[in-house]
């Protein structure tokens, strides 16, 4: 009975829509800024148009590529969608356009995978189903939607759930020997930051790396709780700002800090958000919150439960693979493992013809520097690259009997070592969910506790 009531409280009970409105506006604006930044940096060109080859996500090889003009149009649609979300204009269409265009671009090349891109896709998907345009929105003004002051709690809690997951799992992933006992990789990253103003002089000290490592782990693990609970909320939000500003200054982490600083405001009370709205001149008069509840249909409840279960389970799928997930990276993506390791690799591919003669591949002939860097440590990319090379040389009259690679990877400051079996024919297998036995085992223990 208790569980039932609790579930009711976090799903169907009516609550103020105010936090969701703030979230909608901030998310839309930050996404709009992201798209403009991406465009102005010339990344549409350098990341998606210039490369002759793209790495894909397993299961999404079918995603079609598009002409340069088409791609610019997709980004324009993304920007319009983001603006539409912020303004609450043609909201559902805007959200659908944003989600589809953003996710499409992410699926075009897995090289650029970032956890926060995945987060944006998930939030984009959620927003389609959330009535975030029911207050302080153009849709209300234009009469497309009826103003309402309340919303079923699940609408706000689904966003909170995503945020909690991001932090908490990022924290769990830090509970490993390298992070806690060796202060790795921060012991490598921080000394490179010794030119920072005010705190730069602290960076070369190993102690600093330990303090940052432990503080970072504690922050990630506890910040959701501290944001949820009212007495600590303000302090927690200050910690959010300090933490994300620091990471923004130190690392090339892109828009992630801004997304999180904006998104975590959703934990604040309705009263706080109403004051913020009033400050900006939004006093729209609507009926007060009824504190009733919304009847959720059975299929909807199942869908919601499935989404939650999926989100919780997916990040842990790496436990199905033997060995160290930081090394083999099987089941690594979509797990909120952010800034957790320093890795670099070198992959010398060898295309062997039927007589045993060998072509040593110069990766720069086919890949951009970023693609080469990413491929050199990620086994699924190696398979795709091997297939690409086989096809490329077939076109040039060389029948590849095998495609092999000498790959060396350094991980958290350890001497580079062989990553895959040098005799394994990478073109002989397709990617799949089964364990890649040709990845050489990592012998030290760095597994998650």
């Amino acid at each position, binding site marked *: 009975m208790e569980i039932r009531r609790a579930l009711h409280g976090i799903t169907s009970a009516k609550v103020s829509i105010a936090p969701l409105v703030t979230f909608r506006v901030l998310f839309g604006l930050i996404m709009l800024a992201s798209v403009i930044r991406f465009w102005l940096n010339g990344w549409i060109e350098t990341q998606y148009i210039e490369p002759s080859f793209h790495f894909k996500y397993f299961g999404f090889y079918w995603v079609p590529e598009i002409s340069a003009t088409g791609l610019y149009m997709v980004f324009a649609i993304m920007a319009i969608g983001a603006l539409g979300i912020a303004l609450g204009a043609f909201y559902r269409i805007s959200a659908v356009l944003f989600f589809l265009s953003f996710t499409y671009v992410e699926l075009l090349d897995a090289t650029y995978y970032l956890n926060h891109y995945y987060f944006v896709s998930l939030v984009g998907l959620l927003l389609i189903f959330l009535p975030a345009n029911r207050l302080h929105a153009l849709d209300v003004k234009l009469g497309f939607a009826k103003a309402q002051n309340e919303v079923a709690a699940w609408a706000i809690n689904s966003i909170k759930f995503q945020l909690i997951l991001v932090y908490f799992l990022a924290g769990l992933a830090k509970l490993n020997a390298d992070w806690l006992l060796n202060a790795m990789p921060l012991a490598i*990253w921080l000394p490179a930051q010794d030119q920072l103003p005010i705190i730069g002089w602290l960076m070369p*000290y190993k102690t600093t790396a330990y*303090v940052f490592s432990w503080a970072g782990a504690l*922050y990630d693990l506890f910040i959701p709780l501290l944001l949820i609970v009212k007495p600590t909320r303000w302090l927690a939000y200050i*910690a959010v700002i300090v933490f994300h500003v620091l990471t923004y200054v130190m690392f*090339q982490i892109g828009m*992630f800090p801004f997304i999180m600083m904006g998104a975590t405001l959703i934990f604040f009370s309705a009263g706080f958000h109403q004051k913020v709205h009033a400050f900006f001149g939004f006093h729209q008069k609507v009926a007060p919150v009824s504190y009733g509840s919304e009847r959720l249909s059975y299929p909807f409840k199942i869908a919601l439960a499935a989404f939650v279960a999926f989100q919780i389970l997916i990040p842990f799928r790496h436990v199905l693979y033997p060995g160290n997930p930081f090394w083999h990276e099987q089941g690594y993506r979509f797990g909120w493992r952010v800034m957790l390791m320093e890795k670099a690799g070198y992959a010398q591919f060898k295309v062997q013809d039927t007589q045993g003669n*060998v072509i040593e591949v110069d990766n720069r002939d086919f890949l951009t520097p*970023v693609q080469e860097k990413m491929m050199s440590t990620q086994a699924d990319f190696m398979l795709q690259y091997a297939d690409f090379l086989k096809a490329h040389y077939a076109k040039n009259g060389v029948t590849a009997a095998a495609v092999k690679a000498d790959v060396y990877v*350094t991980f958290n400051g350890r001497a580079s070592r062989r990553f895959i079996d040098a005799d394994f024919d990478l073109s002989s297998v397709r990617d799949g969910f089964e364990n890649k036995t040709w990845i050489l085992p990592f012998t030290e223990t760095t597994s998650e506790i």
Partner: protein
Amino acid sequence: MLRSIFFSVVILVSAFQLSSCKGPEPVDPSGESFDKEAMLQNIGENIISASYDAVSQKLTEVEGKIGEFELEQTEAKLNALRTSVMEAHLLWQACSPFEFGPAAEQNLRLSVNTFPLDTARVNQKIGQADYSLDGTQDAAAKGFPAMEFLLFSEEDSIVLQQLQNENHWAYFKANFDMVQTKIAVVNDAWKGTYRSDFAQNTGSSAGSSISLLVNQLNYDFELLKNAKIGIPLGKKTLGITQTDKIEAPFSKQSLALASANLVAIKEAFTGKESQGFDDYLDALGAKYNQNDLSDEIIAGFEEAETALNQIATDLASAIENEPSKVETAHTALQNLVVLLKVDMPSQLGVQITYQDNDGD
């Protein structure tokens, strides 16, 4: 009760956050800060700027030899010109690893030293009295390789005869002028404000001096491994050798050029007498298994140098007659690539690309 637990956790976390800002006096001796600016100053001044200056001075000497040759077209004058051009080409090898900033603006590496030379194109342009060198079709028809071709591709008497041909000589001079002008622009920039800008840009993000250096040292090193040695050895062509693709095939100076290039990259790493990447890695405590990573890299350089020096004849003959020695040199270079491209940047925590990165 619950509330006080939360408060104590908050205090704990904020204490951590605070201690990371103010913190007690550090006790860890490994925290000795390395003076990156001093290293960049040394590399910028004593290695990069000095290299551009050396080749500039040599080109002034070449200019003199050109003048002398124009006055007196003898075999002796031709040989003096040849020697000075060859020396300039050797000195260029020490500038090749620094294709960023002013050099990148001039597209210097591709402009002055793209090989193998498109000899057909050169001959065609000479025939048409076309001395422009900016066209995309001329990308492989210019610079040191073109000068080398015009000076060395035939026996002395024929070269002498050809150079007295107006078009031949004009094409030679157009190439010399282009090389001299571009290198002068870069040399001047390094003598001007760029050198201090370079030394002061001590960050580790993409575009910082350390990032540019690490990136371009690696780029040039891979060119050395692939273009200078690997491709002629048949590494990209199923083992079928491509001796026509070597650098400087007519003067047979390929090996000397490769060695000079290798030494230049090594010196950029060691900083010669003063501070270099080896000292930086030592200050960071960078290890490679039990050894210092810097020692491991220097040993790798020495192994590659020795292997190149073991090749007795010119590169083309060696590839045909003693390929195992060339193979050994290629392997030594290959082993070193891993240390330079993987271990070193990783230990330096340097970003080599501009893209956003969340560290996985």
